[in-house]
């Protein structure tokens, strides 16, 4: 029996090649999209799940009111970890993880810049990053010990055993390799290639015991069965209990299981987060797969007349309905299986591009039996869903009718198929509107005035000897005509590294908790960055040596500080009294989607880490960089010349939205493609159904155009209904999405019109092919078939 079914199924596939190709490719594309999205979701939900003690690990967070809102953030005082271990019995261990830090690694002649973290020595006991070699309990005990990943070990030592080897960091201190880490999985927030002990941080003088300096991440591991609720209740008053100043604000610990997907806070409580994307993508996956299945049903039932005779004969020779249902479901499972194999191939081919798009390292784990079970289940389910409607529909044919030739596909059947098409197109239009809104929002933000001149501006971290030789490098760059202006700053101009609500000025309301961005620069920063000076002047240490304590304010800061005449005003910050020498227009330091914050640009007394160079526009960038490299090599020979273009870094601010835009467009394209396959099938079915009517009309003198219009009109109605359904849903969804961006576009009417027009044009193109074909047929032939 099964053999017979398979035989029929295969012969049907081969006999109706066009149908098979449309059907299988539609299903395969739908399945491939769903698999890609599922891989992405699987990766997202598996974050940090590999830690053995994941249920006991938490991250410490702060909560406090400033700038009029209850804000939450996860940088903490360095003293917190030991305090928790000492005075809070729920806590078994606390681990600090300092900022990512890039060091120059030297091994023999090899020089590599590597990013990693300084951590407490118990890091490897709390987190499950397995050591291939070394003891997790002791690997970070010694101040001069270092733990490196396999990948880094390979780069530094090739195939040699790295254990016990000595390497030099930043040409200063030697470290001995005491642990070899398995490379980090792709589902963790940690990105280090090396781990250094916290004791080294203390050694270089960067450890402190201030409750006012939120400068490290602190993780805690609770004792088994300890109550996190009890701990969080106590942590509400931890600052009042220990801090000398900065007593305001609460602390709490936040469970590991929620770090990745839920850690977005609004007014101190969880609000959305990545989980929204996960859900959205999940819905999209289900819908794309559903649309592909609907298609399959549409195309299969469209061919029902062809299969009707077979059903009739089988029934006459004794086939029970169950056997026929089994046969048709079996056929669709077979198609799903072929589509499934094709889908895996599509996924395999498109994974690199998808990984690039989503910034992930997803892969199909063929070695995992659970994936196979899942895949087979997935195929079986898809086959059953896609095949169920045709199976029950076809198997219910009355043999008497079909064999007598009086069988005509019922008109009633057209209604559910129309609903399916409306559903498909609604979804497609929602995605088209989504794509248009995302693109509109990105270009709106991109066109926003940045407030400085990004062209020909590069920056370089003050690594190695650059800090020491800064003046020499700067002078050579200027003398060689490579640069027109050079400044030192606290951070790259595209990033905000520091902020405070503790600035003091004359007339400040003691309750004012306005948060100011803090940026520092030595001199000529207005010239180098191309800021727009509104009042006063640039920093100029040569002419005004006191400019080391000068500040520039942006216009928002002048407003926030309520200065009528800002020049000459005094401002206190980090124990220094600063005097205002100029006012600049606001510029975008961080997100181009947010209102610009008040900012204080402090003079050379600040902490300066970065060198900004305005390249000479009269010379080619290539030659400028070549000369600059030779100058950098001369004064900082051990370090690579690692410059960054500010305009490129600025463009990165749009990466997330660009990614969202590309993904929505991709899904919209796929949905439209699959929907069109379905529409094509329905059009063919409808044309076939009305073949007699078309014949009669032609005999009576109807033109090809009038018949084409007649047949296409019905579909236009469907797409218009879809547009009416989709517009409010898409409008609401995109309105919600846009609320994430204070600097945003309005939902414009043309977006809906454009989406509708494109859906209608695509539908007309698809349908008119069938309509014209039907209209062109010789009427005699049509009538004779009756």
């Amino acid at each position, binding site marked *: *029996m099964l053999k*017979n079914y398979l035989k029929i199924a295969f*012969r049907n596939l081969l006999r109706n090649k066009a149908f098979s190709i449309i059907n299988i490719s539609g299903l395969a594309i739908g399945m491939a999209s769903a698999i890609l999205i599922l891989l992405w979701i699987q990766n997202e939900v598996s974050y940090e799940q590999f830690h053995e003690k994941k249920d006991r690990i938490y991250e410490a967070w702060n909560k406090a009111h400033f700038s009029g809102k209850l804000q939450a953030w996860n940088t903490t005082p360095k003293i917190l970890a030991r305090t928790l271990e000492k005075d809070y019995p729920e806590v078994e261990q606390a681990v600090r993880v300092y900022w990512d830090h890039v060091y120059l690694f030297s091994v023999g002649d090899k020089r590599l810049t590597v990013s990693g973290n300084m951590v407490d020595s118990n890091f490897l006991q709390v987190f499950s990053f397995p050591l291939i070699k070394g003891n997790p309990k002791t690997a970070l005990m010694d101040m001069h010990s270092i733990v490196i990943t396999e990948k880094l070990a390979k780069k530094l030592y090739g195939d040699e055993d790295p254990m016990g080897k000595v390497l030099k960091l930043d040409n200063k201190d030697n470290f001995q390799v005491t642990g070899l880490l398995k490379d980090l999985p792709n589902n963790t927030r940690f990105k280090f290639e090396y781990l250094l002990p916290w004791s080294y941080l203390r050694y270089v003088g960067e450890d402190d015991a201030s409750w006012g300096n939120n400068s490290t991440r602190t993780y805690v591991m609770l004792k088994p069965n300890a109550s996190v609720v009890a701990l969080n209740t106590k942590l509400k008053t931890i600052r009042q209990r220990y801090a000398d100043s900065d007593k305001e604000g609460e602390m709490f610990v936040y469970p590991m299981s929620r770090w990745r997907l839920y850690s977005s806070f609004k007014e101190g409580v969880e609000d959305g987060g990545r989980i929204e994307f996960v859900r959205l993508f999940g819905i999209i996956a289900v819908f794309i797969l559903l649309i592909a299945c609907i298609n399959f049903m549409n195309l299969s039932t469209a061919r029902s007349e062809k299969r009707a005779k*077979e059903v009739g*004969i089988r029934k*006459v020779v*004794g086939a029970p309905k169950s056997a026929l249902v089994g046969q048709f479901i079996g056929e669709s499972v077979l198609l799903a299986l072929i589509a499934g194999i094709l889908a895996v191939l599509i996924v395999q081919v498109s994974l690199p591009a998808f990984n690039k798009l989503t910034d992930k390292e997803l892969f199909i784990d063929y070695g995992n039996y659970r994936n196979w079970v899942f895949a087979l289940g997935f195929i079986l389910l898809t086959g059953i869903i896609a095949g169920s409607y045709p199976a029950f529909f076809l198997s219910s044919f009355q043999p008497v009718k079909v064999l007598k030739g009086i069988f005509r596909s019922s008109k009633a059947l057209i209604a559910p198929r129309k609903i399916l098409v409306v559903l498909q197109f609604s979804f497609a239009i929602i995605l088209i509107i989504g794509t248009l809104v995302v693109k509109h929002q990105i270009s709106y933000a991109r066109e926003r005035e940045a407030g400085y001149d990004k062209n020909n501006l590069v920056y370089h971290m003050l690594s190695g000897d650059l800090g020491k030789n800064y003046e020499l490098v700067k002078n050579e760059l200027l003398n060689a005509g490579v640069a027109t202006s050079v400044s030192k700053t606290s951070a790259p101009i595209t990033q905000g590294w520091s902020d405070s609500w503790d600035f003091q000025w004359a007339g400040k309301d003691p309750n004012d908790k306005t948060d100011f961005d803090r940026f520092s620069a030595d001199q000529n920063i207005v010239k180098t960055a191309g800021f727009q000076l509104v009042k006063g002047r640039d920093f100029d240490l040569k002419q005004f040596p006191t400019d080391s304590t000068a500040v520039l304010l942006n216009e928002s800061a002048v407003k926030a500080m309520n200065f009528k005449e800002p020049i000459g005003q005094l401002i206190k910050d980090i124990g220094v009294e600063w005097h205002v020498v100029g006012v600049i227009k606001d510029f975008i330091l961080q997100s181009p989607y947010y209102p610009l914050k008040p900012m204080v640009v402090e003079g050379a007394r600040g902490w300066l880490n970065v060198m900004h160079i305005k390249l000479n526009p009269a010379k080619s960038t290539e030659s400028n960089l070549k000369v600059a490299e030779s100058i950098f090599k001369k004064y900082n020979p051990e370090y690579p010349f690692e410059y960054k273009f500010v305009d490129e870094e600025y463009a990165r601010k749009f990466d997330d939205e660009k990614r969202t835009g590309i993904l929505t467009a991709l899904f919209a394209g796929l949905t439209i493609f699959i929907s069109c396959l379905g529409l094509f099938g329905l059009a063919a079915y409808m044309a076939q159904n009305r073949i007699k009517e078309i014949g009669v009309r032609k005999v009576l003198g109807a033109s090809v155009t009038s018949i084409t219009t007649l047949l296409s009109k019905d579909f236009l109605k469907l797409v218009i209904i879809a547009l009416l359904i989709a517009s409010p849903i898409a409008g609401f969804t995109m309105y919600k999405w846009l609320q994430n961006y204070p600097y945003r576009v309005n939902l414009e009417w043309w977006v809906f019109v454009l989406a509708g027009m494109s859906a209608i044009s695509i539908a007309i193109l698809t349908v008119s092919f069938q309509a014209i074909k039907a209209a062109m047929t010789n009427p005699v032939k049509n009538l004779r078939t009756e």
Partner: protein
Amino acid sequence: MIKIKNLEKIYRTEDVETVALNKLSLSVAEGEFVAIMGPSGCGKSTLLNILGLLDDPDSGSFLFNGIEVADFNERKRADLRKRNIGFVFQSFNLIDELTVFENVELPLIYLGARPSERKQRVEEVLDKMQIMHRRNHYPQQLSGGQQQRVAVARAVVNNPKLILADEPTGNLDSSNGNEVMQMLTDLNEQGTTVVMVTHSEHDARYSHRIVRMLDGQTVLENIMV
């Protein structure tokens, strides 16, 4: 073998009622060859469909081998059908995707016969119908006469007690038509009951008895001698 009494079948659409069978009674004895004749729309095909358990009557009694089958459900009817009845249609009704051999094999598959048994039985029948040399061809590759021979082979492959033929020669030329009629006669002589609907007086003469129908009722019976 067949005993029907006061059989009624009415087709209803929204505003029209068509009486296809009007309290019709008929008996067919085992081994008989009966031809049913009558103008279009007189109810011949409806009768044949009910006899073949492809359709059910609205009222009346239908005894098949002494068992009342008028109220059988679809599953029971399918079961009875596949064990006892073979069909021959005017338009052959072969499955285009299956070869001659596979078409003939189909009823045996639904009967649950073993592959070896099926092979033997199909070959026997194909041989008998002189179509063995075409066993691996598809229906479209055969002439009308050959296709009808395959259809007859399929109808008899499971040794049915009853063969129902609905205008079996309607799509054939006279020589092929005669061949098919001869086959049915041979089968009848070997003991199979045959009920045939036809428009052809010539074909009807092959039968033992002609039942003439009009407006859903039998109006005349001719016994052939």
